[in-house]
């Protein structure tokens, strides 16, 4: 069986396994063991199955496309294959480099020497559709896949972390196995809420989340991404609001979902731009509905066509869309000869493109899709939901809000990278930089351990976005993977600490390293990983490599775009801040003397079921960045998935002046690489040193610093007043509108209705009066009159014969007189 059919099957099954678990727990959860205890095993079994299948897929991939050392001038060449058909596809590169393959066993691993020129190389990617929901013309909505090295790698990462967290959660959530007294919910009578446990429900939501996340990873078209995007959002809502009786938790869940939806609005605009102008949402080419052999181009082929060496250009569809009036004019002119019309349009497209038609559309498409990522990955200005999302249980924070869901935004930017123009990339980088900075500063002064980690997550996501924006496709995604490992590790450790101390407040902790050695050790590993610790130029933890790559690319970018060199300084400053607040966290929690003896006395190490995942993740946090001698490593694996054309330098001049996005491999060259490494090391060391001075050795007092910089301190402690700002700008007006509407409804509409009802009642009363007095009166009067007439007429019948005779005679006389008068008149006329 060839890879083209094997991979979809393996990864498809891996994708669906959590869905099976979800359905099973949905229907039978409470019955799985005592209080649903076995629901955790069902979910874990499902995710382990997914992990196994993902590893199998990974292994299969490696056998066909082994990861080799990526030198600066060789790339794996491959062919785009279709699951259903097998055919040859040849994409000649600009410099004649050849890539080919057959259908039966997809081509693999031809190393071509490009001599320094990194021409268009098409990565190995398999795409296809499982099920077409709707097909109208060229427009097709379908459930399908796009599998390349990135997909396989993300599958392994996500399923592995999810497995660790499932295991961790089965221990962490043991409180839900019996009735729970929630001390944070205050009832109206003053007592605390007493409710039954919800153990199976947690794993049900967790399974659904895994299914949705894997759906995003495997999606072959943007519509499917959007579907699962929303699904992930709703799972996040379920999980954040797990303790929904707490007002803070339910509010936080709503906040997360609503803020995400704001981002999705922009995403829809982007989707519309693409759909309207290009008519397709698929990433890769797909078989067209028509004569066999034709392919309907996907987004990547449209924006980076093979003919121009996979360089980014505004696609024909967008050019025509932007110049629609001219196009229709030509079509109308050549109405009788449509062939001529099409030819003329085709010949004019190049001119139009050079005139700049369609650039705006491409820009909007890119920025629109990025808006969804802003919401999902908690970038500025939509990051306010992520810290509040810590209301959910710690495993949720670890899985959803550090490693996976928030990574979905970065993943989509990475996946959508070929379509992004330099201007869009600059927007992404700037947003990422702002986010990075804001979040890092807030984390400096936060006292809730999970809040620090949450803001750290936001900051690191800013890092990734910035990396992608400055052209570091590989660097950004590399950091995504390593961050997933060490951030989830950090969250699980913090969960362990919270479990032991029953508090989130770091000011009450201290000196816990003695009682919780495993937690302290693994957390130290996590902290070192996040700051990018390592021996420069020799070896380092996973974060060292990814941070290094980002710094290098940022430096490279700022060198060719001097006006944007702030980006490099933002990264460097961020590295300093990150190191500071992470070690502040570690020192406050584990080092020194306990600040609250009551807590310190009762603290204890977590059970094994919680410690083992910590250890597993810490191992990965250490080794994830290493590249084995044969070349096997994360970085090289990513290079296999680099989209066609993105290895080259891009330059453009549209909205923000001349921009050049340097090729990523240039940042690996000597000068930049050295500078970046040294910068990373010095900033991280400085941050650790300052943190140690303030929180370990107590040379500088944090309170004194806070009082000296009181205004800055309070500004940061209040989280830059973002919540208050949004409350004033958005929430209050909405409430005002709502109260206006409700006031109108009550005062105007209800009054109107009541008035109508009142008048109807009055009318009814009036009608009743009429009916009673007039109508009935009339009827009764008629009856009475008839009765009285009868009574009077009765008197005629006296029983007296003589009277009757008299009446007869009188009547006869009268009749005769009358008749004679009539006859007289008739005869006279």
């Amino acid at each position, binding site marked *: 069986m060839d890879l083209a059919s094997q991979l979809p099957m393996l990864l498809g099954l891996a994708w669906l396994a959590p869905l099976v678990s979800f359905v099973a727990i949905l229907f039978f959860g409470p019955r799985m063991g005592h209080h649903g205890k076995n629901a955790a095993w069902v979910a874990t079994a499902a995710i382990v199955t997914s992990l196994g299948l993902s590893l199998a897929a990974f292994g299969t991939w490696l056998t066909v496309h082994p990861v080799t050392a990526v030198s600066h001038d060789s790339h794996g060449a491959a062919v785009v294959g279709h699951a259903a058909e097998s055919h040859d596809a040849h994409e000649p590169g600009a410099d004649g480099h050849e890539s080919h393959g057959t259908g039966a066993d997809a081509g693999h691993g031809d190393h071509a020497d490009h001599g320094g020129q990194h021409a268009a190389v098409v990565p190995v990617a398999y795409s296809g559709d499982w099920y077409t929901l709707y097909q109208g013309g060229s427009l097709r909505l379908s459930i399908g896949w796009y599998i390349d090295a990135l997909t396989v790698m993300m599958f392994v990462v996500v399923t592995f972390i999810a497995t660790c967290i499932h295991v961790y959660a089965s221990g962490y959530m043991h409180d839900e196995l019996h009735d729970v007294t929630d001390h944070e919910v205050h009832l109206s009578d003053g007592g605390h809420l007493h409710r039954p446990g919800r153990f199976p429900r947690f794993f049900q939501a967790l399974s659904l989340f895994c299914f949705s996340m894997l759906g995003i990873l495997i999606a072959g078209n943007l519509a499917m991404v959007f579907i699962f995007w929303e699904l992930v959002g709703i799972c996040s809502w379920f999980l954040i609001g797990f303790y929904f009786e707490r007002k803070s938790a339910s509010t936080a869940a709503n906040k997360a979902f609503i803020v995400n939806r704001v981002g999705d609005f922009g995403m829809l605009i982007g989707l519309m731009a693409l759909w309207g102008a290009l008519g397709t949402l698929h990433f890769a080419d797909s078989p067209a509905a028509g004569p066999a052999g034709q392919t309907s181009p996907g987004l990547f082929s449209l924006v980076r066509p093979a003919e121009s060496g996979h360089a980014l250009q505004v696609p024909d569809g967008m050019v025509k869309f932007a110049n629609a009036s001219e196009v229709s004019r030509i079509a109308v002119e050549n109405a009788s000869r449509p062939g001529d019309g099409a030819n003329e349009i085709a010949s004019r497209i190049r001119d139009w493109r050079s005139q700049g038609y369609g650039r705006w559309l491409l820009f909007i498409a890119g920025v629109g899709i990025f808006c969804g990522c802003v919401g999902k990955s908690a970038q500025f200005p939509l990051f306010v939901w992520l810290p509040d999302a810590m209301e959910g249980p710690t495993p949720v924070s670890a899985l959803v809000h550090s490693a996976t869901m928030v990574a979905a935004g970065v993943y989509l930017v990475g996946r959508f990278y070929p379509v992004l123009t330099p201007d869009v990339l600059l927007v992404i980088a700037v947003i990422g930089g702002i986010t990075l900075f804001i979040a890092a500063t807030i984390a400096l002064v936060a006292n809730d351990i999970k809040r620090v980690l949450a803001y750290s997550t936001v900051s690191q996501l800013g890092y990734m976005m910035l990396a992608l924006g400055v052209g570091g496709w590989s660097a950004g995604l590399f950091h995504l993977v390593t961050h997933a490992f060490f951030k989830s590790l950090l969250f699980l450790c913090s969960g362990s600490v919270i479990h032991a101390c029953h508090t989130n407040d770091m000011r009450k902790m201290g000196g816990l390293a003695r009682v919780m050695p495993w937690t302290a050790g693994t957390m130290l590993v996590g902290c070192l990983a996040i700051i990018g610790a390592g021996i420069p130029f020799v070896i380092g933890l996973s974060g060292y490599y990814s941070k290094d790559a980002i710094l290098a690319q940022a430096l490279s970018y700022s060198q060719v775009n001097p006006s944007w060199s702030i980006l490099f300084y933002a990264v460097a400053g961020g590295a300093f801040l990150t190191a500071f607040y992470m070690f502040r966290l570690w020192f406050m929690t584990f080092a020194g003397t306990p600040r609250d003896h009551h807590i310190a006395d009762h603290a204890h190490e977590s059970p094994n079921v919680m410690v083992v995942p910590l250890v597993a993740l810490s191992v990965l946090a250490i080794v994830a960045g290493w590249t084995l001698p044969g070349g096997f490593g994360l970085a090289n694996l990513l290079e296999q998935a680099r989209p066609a054309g993105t290895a080259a330098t891009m330059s453009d001049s549209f909205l923000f002046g001349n921009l050049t996005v340097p090729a990523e491999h240039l940042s690996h060259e000597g000068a930049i690489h050295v500078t970046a490494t040294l910068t990373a090391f010095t900033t991280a060391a400085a941050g650790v040193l300052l943190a140690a001075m303030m929180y370990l050795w107590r040379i500088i007092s944090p309170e004194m610093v806070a009082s000296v910089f009181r205004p800055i301190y309070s500004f940061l402690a209040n989280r830059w007043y973002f919540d208050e700002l949004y409350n004033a700008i958005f929430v209050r007006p909405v409430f005002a509108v709502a109260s206006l509407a409700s006031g109108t409804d009550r005062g105007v509409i209800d009054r109107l209705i009541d008035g109508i009802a009142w008048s109807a009642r009055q009318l009814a009363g009036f009608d009743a009066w009429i009916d009673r007095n007039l109508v009935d009166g009339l009827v009764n009067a008629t009856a009475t009159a008839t009765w009285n007439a009868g009574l009077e007429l009765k008197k005629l019948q006296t029983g007296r014969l003589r009277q009757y005779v008299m009446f007869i*005679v009188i009547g006869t006389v009268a009749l005769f007189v009358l008749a004679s008068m009539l006859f007289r008149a008739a005869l006279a006329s």
Partner: protein
Amino acid sequence: MIASLLASAVPMSGLLAALPVAAVNWHSVLFLLFAAVACACAVAVVLADNVVRMAFYLVLSLAATAGLFFLAGAEFVGAMQLMIYVGGTLVLLVFGVMLTAQAPFVAIKTSTGDRVLAGMVGAALLAVLLQAAFRVEPWRRPAMAAVAAPAATPIGMALLGVRVDEPVSGAPPAAVRSGYLLPFEIVSVHLLVVLVGAAYLARAKRRRTPRAIDVAASSVGPVVTAREAARSSASALVSGGQR
């Protein structure tokens, strides 16, 4: 016919001739005579209070009417009038009068108001009838003199269903008037029925209680008390008496 006979055979024709009216129409004279008697007696019937006298006046009136019939040429009808009406019906009436002519019932007066009202109504009716009588011009004077033509035979034949008198004027020459056989038969049955009915109605009834009339007769008084007595006796009779 009779008029001519009388006119020709009256020995007093000379006397009459001596009267100032030389060519007197005896038909008219006799008519006037009979008419005057009939009308006067009819009015007398109305005006009389005594029922016996009323009966007598009625007899005279109807007899005079028979004379009128003779003068009009309907001698059979006149004869029947005398025989059946005067001789039968009125005799019956007189019998009834005799049977009920007890003292208090012989002359029952009506109130004056009733009399005035009846008089007015009668006058109005008379006016209407007289006016109608004089309207039609051809009725004022006859076209032919009286001729003696016995009417008995044609009547008898008509009663048997055969019409031998003149045909219907204006009708086709062969059209004759219809016979009266059927009415004749019906009337005979009718008379039989009347005979049986009257006999039944007037039969002698067995009385367990004395007759109300005998009880009331013992307390003869004004008409008012007799009425009350009659009422009480009638109710006693109805409740107690059985047939």
